[in-house]
């Protein structure tokens, strides 16, 4: 049962109302599963789902990435630095 931390930024942080969400996931859960849980609980943010890239422990990762206890999963909406 990995405990993971979701990190939210910019418009997604505003829509959810927090920059950080703690989740306990079933064994074998993937980064994509964690993202699904968030959007299931915050359906008004759902239009952002298809725009989000996932990062696990500060590196871009695939949704199939299997999570371990203590992982930090960031939901990266389209970036606009510069």
């Amino acid at each position, binding site marked *: 049962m990995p405990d993971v931390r979701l990190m939210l930024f910019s418009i997604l942080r505003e829509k959810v109302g927090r920059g950080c969400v703690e989740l306990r996931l079933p064994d074998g859960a993937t980064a994509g599963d964690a993202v699904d849980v968030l959007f299931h609980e915050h359906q008004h943010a759902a239009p952002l789902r298809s725009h989000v890239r996932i*990062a696990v422990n500060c590196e871009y990762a695939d949704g199939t990435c299997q999570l371990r206890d203590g992982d930090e999963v960031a939901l990266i909406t389209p970036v606009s630095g*510069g």
Partner: protein
Amino acid sequence: MQALTSPEVRLLVSKEPIDAAAECAFLYTPEAGGIDIFIGTTRRFTGERETVELVYECYTEMALREMRRLVDAAAEQWPVKRCCIVHRVGVVPLAEPSVFIGVATPHRAEAFEACRFLIDSLKREVPIWKYERYTDGSGEWVGSGMQAG
């Protein structure tokens, strides 16, 4: 302020105004014959919309790692002798720099190409977000595809 620095590479995310002269000084080295610099600043008008200020948010730990990855990718393609990427976060008033990218290489063509690669890649890859605040009281997270609020 958070930074990753070495004698050749300086990566910085900070709320403080960017000191362009200090960043330039870092880039000077006898190994280079050309330095190219890109500075992004807060523009007042985009079409007919007037901007009051920009506000940047950053996932700093990952941003510094992504910047490092981009500098390494540039160094594989061009003979980069010195490089700096500095991004300001928080409020950036009109006309002030939000980003400073500088590359020093032996010859100018390499410096131009590497600098362009770095700013173009930063805009696609580095987790930094820009909120644009307009004079009519509205605002938006640029490129997010949804209204803020």
